[in-house]
């Protein structure tokens, strides 16, 4: 069946800068914003943009992600036609081939795309927090009659050397793509969101695959190759909230942005819901000694302590006399009475002992681990 557009969501990355958070789960499965996982954002963007055929490419620690997405029900992607398909590396006649580079991952799923038979393919990554209408970008792509359209966002000039930068002419036509330039000529950063005409993309994936020197990466190889071949490549200027949550620091910042009404990240827009798997838990309980100030709290929580400027996921208990300041507390954490934490990310299921104390190290946000808890227990002789 002919489809207008199919999304290919790259969700295989490890995200090693997120340390212990990604030991057991892929980065797109990391909890975010009190109830979501990072991948909820691109998936919800797809369905809100009326893209109902989504291939999710997984490789690193895929189990949690597969289990979470399931048949795609929370996103209304459990469909007879299209819907969500989990695409993992597989064994074939030539042996087992791991995905080796973003372009190679798509190359290895040419069969899936051929079956779907789309006119356009949108490539997404599962690493970013943003709300974006891909349909508007597709309109732009069609209107510009481009071979490829790359979504870009203006970043502060001082940060430009950390991103893949698009150098464009006055008509937003891409002249050059530079990965992490030391001296950037532009501050338009690639968001890792690409729209291609499927026929064109297929052609260049095949060429790239034959090139032994290629790293099979969209930014490094496919885009430069298409530019070199004289394809019309345009940059689509996106305006709005967008954040790469690749580090402990940026993950914490993006969570804190939810508490700031001016950050541009609003989860409360009924016309652009972020869908997520909803656990069946009772409403949150705020006890007699609960104190909440600038906080985002999910269902199933029991709050008897002090919670300030913090994000609290489902099923968390904050006991009396405990206090949290600028913390991100992931699901099922229990915080013992009298514990004091400031600027800490607490991963799921940790049990924080009574009177435990931990705060940021200088400017550095702390990612709590069981080891740190054991260390503290040793130091107080418990």
């Amino acid at each position: 069946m002919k489809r207008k557009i199919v999304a290919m969501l790259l969700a295989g990355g490890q995200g090693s800068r997120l340390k212990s958070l990604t030991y057991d789960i892929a980065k797109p499965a990391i909890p975010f914003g009190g109830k979501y996982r990072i991948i909820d954002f691109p998936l919800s963007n797809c369905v809100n943009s009326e893209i109902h055929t989504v291939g999710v490419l997984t490789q690193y620690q895929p189990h949690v992600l597969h289990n979470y997405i399931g048949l795609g029900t929370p996103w209304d992607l459990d469909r007879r036609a299209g819907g969500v398909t989990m695409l993992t590396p597989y064994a074939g006649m030539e042996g087992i081939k791991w995905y080796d580079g973003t372009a190679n991952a798509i190359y290895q799923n040419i069969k899936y795309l051929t079956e779907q038979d789309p006119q356009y393919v949108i490539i997404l990554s599962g690493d970013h927090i943003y709300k974006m209408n891909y349909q508007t970008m597709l309109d732009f792509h069609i209107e510009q009659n481009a071979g490829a359209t790359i979504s870009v966002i203006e970043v502060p000039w001082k940060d430009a050397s950390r991103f893949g930068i698009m150098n464009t002419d006055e008509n937003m036509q891409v002249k050059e793509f530079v990965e992490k330039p030391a001296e950037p000529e532009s501050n338009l950063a690639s968001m890792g969101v690409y729209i291609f005409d499927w026929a064109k993309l297929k052609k260049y994936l095949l060429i790239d695959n034959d090139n032994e020197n290629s790293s099979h990466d969209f930014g490094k190889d496919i885009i430069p190759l298409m530019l070199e071949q004289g394809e019309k490549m345009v940059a689509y200027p996106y305006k709005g909230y967008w954040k790469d949550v690749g580090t402990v620091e940026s993950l914490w910042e993006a969570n804190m942005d939810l508490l700031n009404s001016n950050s541009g990240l609003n989860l409360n827009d009924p016309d652009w819901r972020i869908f997520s798997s909803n656990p069946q838990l009772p409403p949150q309980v705020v006890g007699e000694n609960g104190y909440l100030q600038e906080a985002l709290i999910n269902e199933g929580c029991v709050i008897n302590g002090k919670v300030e400027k913090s994000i609290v996921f489902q099923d968390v208990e904050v006991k009396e006399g405990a206090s949290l300041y600028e913390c991100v507390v992931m699901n099922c954490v229990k915080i013992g009475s009298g514990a004091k934490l400031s600027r800490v990310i607490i991963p799921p299921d940790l049990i924080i002992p009574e009177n435990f104390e931990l705060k940021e190290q200088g400017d550095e946000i702390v990612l709590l681990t069981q080891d740190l808890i054991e260390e503290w227990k040793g130091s107080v002789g418990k």
Partner: protein
Amino acid sequence: MRMAAVIDATVKKPGLEDLTIYRTTASVPFAGRYRLIDFTLSNIVNSNINSVGVFATYPFVSLLDHIGMGKNWDLDRRKDGLYFLPISQKAGGQITVGSFAALEEHMDFFNKSRQDYIVVTTCSTVCQIDYEDMLDAHITSGVDIMEAVSGETGLSNYILKKSLLKELIRTHREKRIISVEDVVKLKKAPYTFGKYEYTGYYAIIDSMESYFQASMDLLEKDKRNELFLSNRPIYTKVKDEPPTRYMPGSHVTQSLIANGSTIEGTVDNSIISRAVSVNQSSRVDHCVIMQKSFIEKNCELSYVIADKDVHIEEGVVLKGTPEKPVVLRKGERVTKEEVR
């Protein structure tokens, strides 16, 4: 596999009229994110019953919208599952549970089901009953109809053999009997009756006062913990509301709050449903505020039950009492002038 269940959602409770103008008693919101039927349906599925007939009368749109095909209770099945069984107006509006005139309209449900026992239940009793345990007691006792009770109080939950229920439905006119509840109350000969003692928390919701009291019960930890058990969860229709946001200046204690709300004011001893706004300097004390209600700035509410989509304008002061809470109907808009 031994039991099927009948939820009698045709029962009207005259005392709940303010909340049932636009809905059945079964779909009255309760405990912030639930409808009364959620407790009944969850008890049924937590007792491993997979075949459920929901008998309903007008206005049942909100009920149908809420339960749908039963997906949230894992009742969207190929075999058995949830049957929505609307009945004609003539047979509707009963005040006792298990009306034979209503059940008679869907004899197919009983004829086609493969189960031997039927649970007959209602939505106006909120509890955590285990029907498997009750069935065991029923079989052991050898009586015809088992009634769940808590002390002296009947909980309007019954178990009987399907063959007996069919016989009662067939002969109810000549026997001059109205409903399962009626038969039990009359101790109608030649049938035998037994009592199953239920020991957990329960609330019978048949008036605004009892509705309010049951809501306030949920703020007591012990009662709440008897109703919300992690191994017997209460399922409901899931919504994609974000977590609740507490703004600078908010002050909240002793309350139960559902997702998607925005709290800027003060909330004490209250139940707040999904997507409610309590704006700056407003005080909400001993209130039940339902879904999407909006409370503007500088309001003062105590002992108020606000149904869905109520809008309370700036500066409104409303004070009820525990016995007679102020009830605002669905979609009502309250202005300062009106209150004066």
